[in-house]
């Protein structure tokens, strides 16, 4: 609080700072650099008086800490685990994730902020935290038997996954651009390795390298965007950025607002590129099909839901709340990107013959749907949160079914491989069908309510044309979501696939949880909607 006050007064003391050069000079000014430590010093002095501050801080980042500690525990425990017992590490990870969820639950409604406003455990962040934790726990369940079948059962898998989860939670609860970047990197680096986890599979290696190169590239964009925003506003704190930008947009001095706005405009554009890479928006989506296809299927499942939850969380915080559209009109740009993303994602998905690639393009299309909520703005926050939760259950269910149907080391990846599955595995087929229908937005499944909420907020706020584009895209998407269902139910299986392969019990449990989630969120959505609506941003 004190820091914030000081900063505003500090800015206020230089009202004449009204052109770009001056502002740059101001930031490079040695006197300013000297001043900042003084401020920090003040802060430290005052914090000595109230000792309880560190406690509160740790409590707020408890979910991150628990996940990170679990990650380290798994790393240590691995040294003492024999090869045939690596599975216990998976259970350990799940226990850690459950504890983290409890920690997140206890924070619900506290609306606390810590580390000088850098991290905030508001309900928005906690909702996403819980979504990420659910996604991670289900992914671990899906991975345990798969890893054994593919001979990649190593403790590092869980270590990396948990590290990524810590980064995701950090990103979703961050209220400062620097912390968002920290979270972004913390989630990305483990995922690069996880994508390439099947070392003897060239596709997996390609996926890892491609993801790494493009991801590093996008991080650079993101970082440069942060720098420019800092240049324009003098802060990396989202709240202060928003104050500063709305101040400058209301400012009488035209030159001032123009110059600092053009800096902020370019900065926002670069941030947008960074986010667009992470959530796979057109035209920054090219990595997605290759990475989703090449990465081990449980990693793909995890990435497709949890990265989206974390990145969209930060995306919403930065664009909807920190950069007011009155200052920079970004809504039109995002609306165009949303249309392109939905349409190209869906059309490209029509042409795929590999189910992982198809789901990759489908995930691009879904990013487009969620983007509609961003365009609509603050009132659609709850809709996007619900959508992300619904999407998490649904997509994990779909990937879970793909994992469940793997025959030892061999996976059913071509859509035609699913022919006749409904006869041999009626339950898994039903689960996959339900998840695909939910992705297509069919009632009474979760995906329908998600789309209903997003299109509803679009129509409510005068973006009806965007909703129309969205629903027409759903019709297109139905065509490719129907294809695996057609194969499973309406075609006869080939002799290539051994019949009566047992479904791994843990995968079965994960699939059951996902399908129950999909149906329950579809039939009784009001509880989750109420949660999402109370998930205001601090």
């Amino acid at each position, binding site marked *: 609080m004190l820091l914030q006050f000081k900063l505003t007064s500090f800015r206020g003391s230089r009202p004449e700072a009204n052109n770009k050069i001056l502002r740059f000079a101001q930031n490079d000014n040695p006197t300013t650099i000297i001043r900042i430590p003084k401020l920090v010093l003040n802060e430290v002095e005052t914090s000595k008086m109230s000792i309880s501050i560190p406690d509160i801080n740790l409590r707020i980042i408890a979910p991150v800490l628990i996940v990170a500690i679990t990650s380290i525990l798994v790393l240590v425990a691995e040294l003492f685990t024999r090869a045939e017992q690596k599975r216990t590490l998976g259970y350990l990870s799940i226990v850690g994730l459950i504890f983290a969820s409890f920690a997140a639950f206890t924070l619900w409604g506290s609306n606390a902020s810590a580390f000088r406003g850098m991290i905030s455990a508001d309900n928005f962040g906690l909702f996403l935290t819980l979504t990420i934790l659910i996604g991670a726990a289900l992914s671990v369940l899906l991975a345990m038997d798969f890893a054994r079948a593919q001979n990649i059962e190593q403790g590092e898998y869980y270590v990396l996954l948990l590290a990524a989860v810590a980064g995701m939670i950090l990103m979703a609860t961050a209220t400062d651009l620097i912390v968002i970047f920290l979270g972004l990197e913390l989630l990305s680096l483990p995922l690069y390795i996880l994508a390439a986890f099947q070392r003897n599979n060239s596709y997996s290696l390609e996926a890892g390298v491609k993801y790494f190169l493009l991801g590093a590239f996008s991080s650079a964009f993101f970082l440069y965007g942060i720098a420019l925003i800092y240049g324009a506003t003098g802060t990396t704190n989202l709240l202060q950025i928003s104050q500063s930008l709305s101040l400058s947009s209301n400012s009488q001095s035209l030159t001032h607002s123009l110059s600092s706005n053009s800096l902020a405009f370019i900065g926002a554009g670069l941030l947008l590129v960074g986010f667009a890479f992470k959530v796979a928006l057109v035209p920054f989506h090219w990595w997605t099909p290759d990475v989703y296809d090449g990465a081990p299927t449980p990693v793909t499942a995890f990435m497709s839901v949890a990265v989206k939850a974390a990145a969209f969380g930060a995306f919403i915080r930065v664009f909807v709340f920190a950069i007011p559209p009155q200052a920079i009109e970004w809504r039109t740009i995002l609306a165009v990107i949303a249309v392109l993303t939905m349409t190209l994602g869906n059309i490209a998905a029509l042409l795929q013959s590999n189910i992982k690639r198809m789901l990759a393009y489908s995930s691009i299309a879904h990013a487009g749907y969620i983007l509609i909520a961003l365009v609509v703005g603050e009132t659609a926050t709850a809709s996007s949160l619900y959508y992300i939760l619904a999407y998490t259950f649904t997509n994990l269910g779909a990937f879970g079914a793909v994992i469940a149907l793997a025959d030892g080391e061999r996976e059913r990846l071509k859509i035609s491989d699913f022919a006749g599955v409904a006869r041999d595995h009626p339950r898994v087929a039903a689960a996959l069908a339900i998840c695909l229908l939910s992705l297509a937005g069919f009632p009474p499944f979760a995906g329908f309510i998600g789309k209903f909420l997003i299109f*509803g907020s679009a129509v409510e706020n005068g973006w009806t044309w965007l909703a129309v584009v969205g629903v027409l895209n759903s019709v297109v998407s139905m065509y490719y979501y*129907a294809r695996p269902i057609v194969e499973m*139910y309406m075609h006869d299986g080939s002799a290539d696939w051994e019949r009566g392969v047992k479904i791994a019990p843990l995968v079965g449990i994960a699939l059951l949880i996902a399908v129950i989630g999909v149906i329950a969120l579809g039939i009784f959505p009001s509880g989750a909607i*109420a949660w999402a609506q109370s998930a205001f941003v601090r």
Partner: protein
Amino acid sequence: MNNVISLLLSIPLISALILALIPRQNARAIKLFALFSTFASFALSCSLFASFRATSDLQFVERVAWIPQFGISYYVGVDGLSILLVMLTTFLMIIAIGGSWNAITDRVKEYHILFLLLEAAMIGVFVSLDLFLFYVFWEFTLIPMALLIGIWGHGRRVYAAIKFILFTMFGSTLMLVAILALVFIHRDQTGVLSFALSDITRNPIPPALQPILFAAFALAFAIKVPMFPFHTWLPDAHVEAPTAGSVILAGVLLKMGTYGFIRFAIPLFPSAARDFAPLLIALALIGIIYGAMVSIVQRDIKSLVAFSSVSHLGFVMLGLFTFNAQGMSGGILQMVNHGLSTGALFLLVGMLYERRHTRLIADFGGVAKPMPIFAAFFLLVMFSSVGLPGLNGFVGEFLILVGAYRANALYAALAATGVVLSAIYLLWMYQRAMAGPVTKEENERLRDLSPREIALLVALAVFIVWIGVYPATFLDPIQASVMQLLGGFK
């Protein structure tokens, strides 16, 4: 008993769950249980009909908040517009399950589960009084029906199933946007956020905003009916569907479209409905004549019946959009009649197909000789479809023609040609397939109907004759609701 309708909805749902638990080896137990469940539903809907008062009020209403944040409620009830359709649904379900007793041998369990889910969804469509709830049921009917066509259908079943889904979904998703727009316009006007039909019709939205929303609703319903030129999915779906699927598709699913008009599109947008009426009537008349003419040249009996549906539903649409008491009551009654007659025709074609594995008219000839009972039922059902006085089709078509004449004599004249044409295509088909000497050796030893098949057809014939001889039983409950609907225009 003030939650009869919930019970009616839950019987098929719970039965489907129970079926899922029966081991798939017990095919007989599965069939018996499904049949038992449909009987229970029908009995319940009969008791609903018996205690139904012939007023315009909504009856057996239940309303529970569902998604209170958006004013969405589980809001169900029946009135004169829907009571007959609920009965028709539960009745035809017995026919469907009974009719596929021997025809379905593959994946019996899934088949019956899907049918019961479909039954729940169809009943749901007819009893929903909340736009959101209606949309959920409306969309949900697609999944079981498409699977039934795609799994147990013939020849190009997958193509037909996908086409069915995509066509209907295209219309209905636009309707979803229209529903949302309507609800928010209503909220901006009145401050009440509600998806309940009764709340929105109380304060109709301004006439200026009505046309585009009406168009979106009408498109969804017109595709479902199907009206010319949106009918192209129907012949494919019908020809490839299994017999019971065709019975339900023609008997009930198409009625969802016409029902949508009278339950939602017309009361929600009265002024736009008036403005659009000439267009819709024109399309209905084209459908009547075009459907009949295409039927004449069909070589496959099933596609003949399918195209005749386009023609018959044109009659229903014509009746509904005359906006007078005769036309509308006739239209509603004709929905039921078409469900019975065309359902019966599809059943008969299916029986023939089970015996000969062909449906081409040219493959038959003189079938009446080896199968006299079959021929007799065929004749009765055909006359019902043609509109012979004394049978159900006559009452409906007569009322519609009276209504059309009152609206515009030209409408009646054009529609009447459809009646003539229907006599041509049906009687000519009957002559070629059933009458005369047996031309093909394979047809000489065709089995006549089994007791099960006779029982199904007798059940249908009872209603066909009942409505023809004493329509008041079924017309009386309709009247009050129709008058109230028309009152919205005065």
